[in-house]
């Protein structure tokens, strides 16, 4: 039970990779990629958790009381915002492939020659 968050993170990563490999649609593939990325957020925040710790915002919280790790939270929050733009870029690539090849099926992309 004390390893449950790490196991959930590993499970989400494996599920996302399986989704990417068996995808029939490039847009579906991009969303599965974002699911895989969310596994890293769960892992980061689980590693930084302190038992009985509060959020590391010291408004109304006495200085010196137990608080969770702020470094992993800083990493996660910038990562979430940047992943929006990166998934947007992958979707733009999918749209470009559709324009050139006429299909969003990754298996049939190699058949359509420009």
């Amino acid at each position, binding site marked *: *039970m*004390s390893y*449950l*968050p790490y196991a*959930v993170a590993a*499970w*989400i990563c494996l*599920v*996302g990779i*399986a*989704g990417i490999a068996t995808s*029939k*649609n490039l*847009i*579906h593939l*991009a*969303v*599965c990629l*974002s*699911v895989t990325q*969310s*596994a890293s*957020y*769960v892992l980061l*925040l*689980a590693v930084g*958790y302190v038992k009985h*710790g*509060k*959020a590391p*915002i010291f408004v109304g919280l006495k200085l010196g009381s137990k*608080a*969770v790790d702020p470094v992993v*939270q*800083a990493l*996660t*929050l910038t990562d*979430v*915002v940047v*992943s*929006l733009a990166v*998934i*947007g870029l992958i*979707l733009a690539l*999918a*749209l470009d492939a*559709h*324009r050139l090849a*006429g299909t*969003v099926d990754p298996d049939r992309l190699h058949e359509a020659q420009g």
Partner: protein
Amino acid sequence: MIPLQIVALALVALGAPLVVLTRDPLRQALVNGIYGVSLVCLFVVLEAPDPALSMLAVSGIGYPLVIVAAVARVRARDRGREDE
């Protein structure tokens, strides 16, 4: 581990395969939004308000917009292509 954390983790672990198994991209946009809300609940329970705020805005408005806009453009170009 308090029970609230176990429930939040179970919801997230349940939501991820649901997102992957939804094959139609339009429906997947909606399921991804719900998965994002369950992730927000998990972040709050893990005492992380800042990532929860950014995940809420990104998965509530950002992802549905870019996915649905991409699907709309694909469909419009398909419709234009078969008219030619």
